[in-house]
Each structure stands twice: as C-alpha cells, then as structure tokens.
C-alpha cells in the first residue's frame, strides 16, 4: 500500500514510470493490453492499405503509400518493444493476435474499395489515431510515452498526405470528387467509433485517467476530432454523412448524430466485412514464414557453435 501510494504520487507529479520501477499489477496489465492492441492495430492496419500498393495510380503515390505502410510496420515494432519492457514477448503477443484472443482497432475490418479510401484512411483514420495518441505522448509510462512521440510525428505526416491526396482528387474532376465523397460516407462513422464507447459505457476510463495513461475521455477526444475534421471536409467541398450534424454557436462545437453502437459491437465481436480476411492474411503470412524464421534461428545457432568451437580451438 505504501508502494502504491508512492507510485500514485509519482504519477501525480507527472514523473515517468520506467520498466524496472515498481508498478501495480493492474497498471502493468492495462498497459500491456493497450500497447499490444495498439501494436496489433498497426500490423493489421498494413493490410487494407497494402491492398492498393500494387494499384496506386502514380509512382509518386505508390512510393508514398509504400513508405506509409512501412512506417506502420515500424510503429508496430516500437510498440511491441515497449510492451516487451513490461515482460511480455512478441511471440506471445503475436500468438494472441493470430488466435483471435487479442483485439486490434476495428476500423481495419472495413475494406478499401477505391483509391479514395487510401486518402480517407490517412485523413480520417490517422487523424483519429493522432487525437488519441497526442495525449499518450504524456502517458505516465516512459517507454510508451516515448514511442508515442515518434509515432505521432509520423502519423501527422500521413494525415496531411492523405488529406492532400483527397484535395488533389476533388480538384481534378467531378467523378473523382464523387469517389472521395463515397469514401467519406463509408469511413466517417467507423472513424468516430475509433474513440471507443461513449463515456457512460466505457469500462476502463476512470482508472486509466487516474494513472495518467489516459488524459481525456473517449467522448472528449471524439468531439475534438469532429471539431477538427468537419471544417476540413467542408474545405474539400464534401458533405458529412450525418443529417444531424450542426454547429453549436454557443459551445463552439460541432454536434453530431447518434453513433450506431450495434454496428460497433458487431464488428468488434468479429462480424465486420473483413475480420476473417484480416486474420487469415496474418495467419497465412505467419505460417508461410515459419520456415524462414526457423532457418534464421538455426543459422544463428550454427554460427554461435562455430564461434565457440573456434574459441576453444584457439585456447
């Protein structure tokens, strides 16, 4: 209890908790869950965008998309490393993802149907991710906070790139603008769902706030996102697919309509358009890569043994 109080005092004083510091088991667990979900999201998130690498319309866009997907892989790497500092191995985490036990952001269970979806993911999905992640840069757990600083920098680049892609399309022709509008129609609500259940239904919020893992509630972050994004959509000349959306002059906020939480729960539960495809793709990559990983280990061991033998021979 004294340890707990000291821990909370450090958190309250905005000191960073480091891996070797004492921490409550629930704090560790919450972080492992959150960081690994976040890592898995980066990995699974490579798939819907990867779907368009071979069909990107220009070489410049192809390069940008490849670089973006590569960055996501990189984010996955730092996040797995941050999780590893809490005593859980990448193998365990991978196993949890592939068995379907671990979650990842449900937004990646929607398909990328047109090239505009690549822009929409950058603009909306990365935009929502950044809203979630900026406060995490000040998270009480040191490794997570440092990983987030790096991730946020790259994500905001992706977000601008996605928006710029859509802007180019909207300016180029009416048909392309329609394609962008269609993408917005399909990605808007799932993006709002990325912030998680409404505060009244959110399980983990209060404790995470006290631990300074979270700094804002789901609804607060969602509102920030809506306020930032609606004017951007208008600038593109697009209509938000929400008839209830209106600007409240008094509060200065954009008020949005009812979110379809049934759809949210259904997709989280595994019944989204692409849940099966996503896990199948990850499992296939993992299974087909098994012989490569085994070869790596076997080779590393051979080398170790040879070096050892050489050392002994030299003695």
């Amino acid at each position, binding site marked *: 209890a004294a340890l707990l109080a000291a821990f909370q005092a450090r958190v309250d004083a905005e000191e960073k908790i480091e891996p070797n510091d004492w921490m409550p088991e629930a704090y560790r667990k919450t972080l492992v869950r959150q960081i690994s979900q976040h890592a898995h999201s980066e*990995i699974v998130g*490579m*798939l819907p965008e*990867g779907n368009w*690498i*071979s*069909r*990107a*319309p*220009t*070489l*410049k*866009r*192809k*390069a940008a998309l*490849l*670089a973006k*997907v*590569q960055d996501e*892989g*990189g984010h*996955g*790497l730092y996040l*797995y490393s941050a999780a590893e500092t809490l005593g859980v191995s990448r193998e365990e985490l991978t196993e949890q993802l592939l068995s379907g036990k671990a979650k990842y952001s449900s937004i990646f269970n929607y398909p990328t149907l047109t*090239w505009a979806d690549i822009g929409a993911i950058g603009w909306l999905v990365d935009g929502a991710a950044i809203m979630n992640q900026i406060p995490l840069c000040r998270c009480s757990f040191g490794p997570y906070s440092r990983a987030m600083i790096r991730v946020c920098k790259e994500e905001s680049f992706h977000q601008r790139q996605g928006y710029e*892609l859509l802007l*180019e*399309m909207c*300016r*180029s*022709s009416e*048909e*392309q603008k329609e394609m962008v509008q269609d993408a917005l129609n399909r990605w808007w609500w799932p993006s709002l769902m990325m912030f998680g259940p409404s505060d009244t239904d959110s399980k983990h919020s209060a404790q995470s706030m006290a631990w300074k893992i979270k700094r804002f509630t789901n609804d607060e972050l969602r509102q920030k996102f809506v306020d930032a994004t609606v004017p951007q959509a208008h600038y593109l000349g697009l209509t938000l697919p929400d008839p209830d959306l209106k600007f409240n002059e008094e509060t200065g906020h954009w008020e949005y309509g009812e979110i379809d939480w049934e759809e949210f729960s259904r997709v989280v539960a595994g019944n989204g358009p692409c849940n099966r495809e996503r896990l199948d*793709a990850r499992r*296939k*990559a993992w299974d*087909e*890569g*098994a*012989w*490569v*990983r*085994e*070869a*790596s280990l*076997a*080779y590393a061991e*051979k080398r170790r043994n040879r070096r050892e033998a050489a050392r002994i021979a030299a003695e």
Partner: protein
Amino acid sequence: MTTTDQTADLFAYTLRLADDAAILGQRLGEWCGHAPTLEEDIGLANVALDHIGQARALYTYAGEVEGEGRDEDQLCFLRHERQFNNCLLVEQPNGDFAQTILRQFFFSAFMLPLWRELKGSKDATLAAIAAKAEKEAAYHVRHSAEWTIRLGDGTTESHERAQAAVDQLWPYTGELFEIDGVVERLVAAGIAVDPASLRDEWHATLREVLDEATLRLPPDGWFQTGGRSGRHSESFGHLLSQMQYMQRAWPGHKW
C-alpha cells in the same frame, strides 16, 4: 552517328533501366504485410521503395530525352506489355521468400557494379542517378546476401528452397549481360556501361556468397531471353493489369 540516333539509344537504354527498377519495385511491393517477419515487411518495403525511386528518376529522364512530353507516369502506366523492356529476371513472380531473396541477390549483385561504373558516364543525369542508386544497391546486395546465407546454411528445408530458387532463377541471369546495338553504341560514346565488363565481379560475388551459403551455382547452360525486346513471361501481363489498372480505368485524371 547522328544526334537523333544517340537520342533514341539513350531513350531506349534509360527506359530499360527504368523498367527494371519499376517492375522489381512492383513485385516487391506485393509482399507488404505478408512477409515472414515484421522486420522483413519493413525491409522488403524499403528495397521496393528504393526501386520505385530509381524508376521515377529514370522514367522522368527518359521522358526528357524522348522530348515528346511523356512523364514518369505515362511511361510506366500507359505502355503495353510488348513495349516494356525490363529483363525477365525482375518480373519473375515472388514465389516463396527464398525466390524473392535470390532474385534480388542475382539482380543487385549485377546492379551494384553497374551503377558504380555508370557514375562515370558522360551523361551527367545518368551519372547522378547512378551515384544515388549505387548506395541503395550496396544495401540490397548486403540484405539479400545475408538472407541467402541464412537460408542456404539454415535448416534442411530452407537449404532446399534456396537451392531450388537458385536453380529456377539462374536461366534468367544471362540476359543481364546481353549487348545489342543500343548498348554497344552508347558504350562507345562513353555513356553506357559494358555489361561484359561486370561479369567477373558478378560471378565472384555470387561464388563467395553461395559458397558461404553452401549452395551450388548451376553450370552455365542455356539462358532465357526476350525481355529487352518485350517478349515477357505470361505472368507479366497479369502484373501490368494490376499496376496499370487506375490509369487505364480513369484515363486523363490527376491523382
């Protein structure tokens, strides 16, 4: 030789280099999200990116040389199958990881000395592109050689797969050393590199790495040919139908 002839030669030569880079980049991009490890998802994407970058510079320059206003995207996305002049090696399907690695190793072990020599080209643009590409190729050789050794000297399965990849891809390496009038004339003009001059170094690199990998180099036998005159593999048309889909389905749009 008239300037027009040399312009046509330079266009053809630059376009071949561009096609090699673009098509290999396209193949490598197919791995994204499906590699055996997360590190390789990143690593292969990196190699893909380098090739797409080279393709952009080379297509842009080819378009300038041609002088008919075609930009990098028109050259990459609006030519038909028989107009592509990449070598057959780079268009070979990814196959398993061993095939992707060996394809890269055979190719990059050739491109590294080629770019190094091309730095001395009398054509300043090619020389500048080569200077950047040389550094990238050095990394590609290192990366693919390390994996070749790991796979060749790893498990029984990985050894067999790596040897199968060597055997399968070997007939496509002869084309790297082909010389035709275009290359001959540009070599004489101090613009292009004579591929024959790279053969010993290429062979030495292969021997060294394959030896360490406990892999056997096939005997020089019959080699496949056709890429430089646009006779590709059957898989190539399928690659193009994906790669060019957007530009074909939405002609004249900006992206």
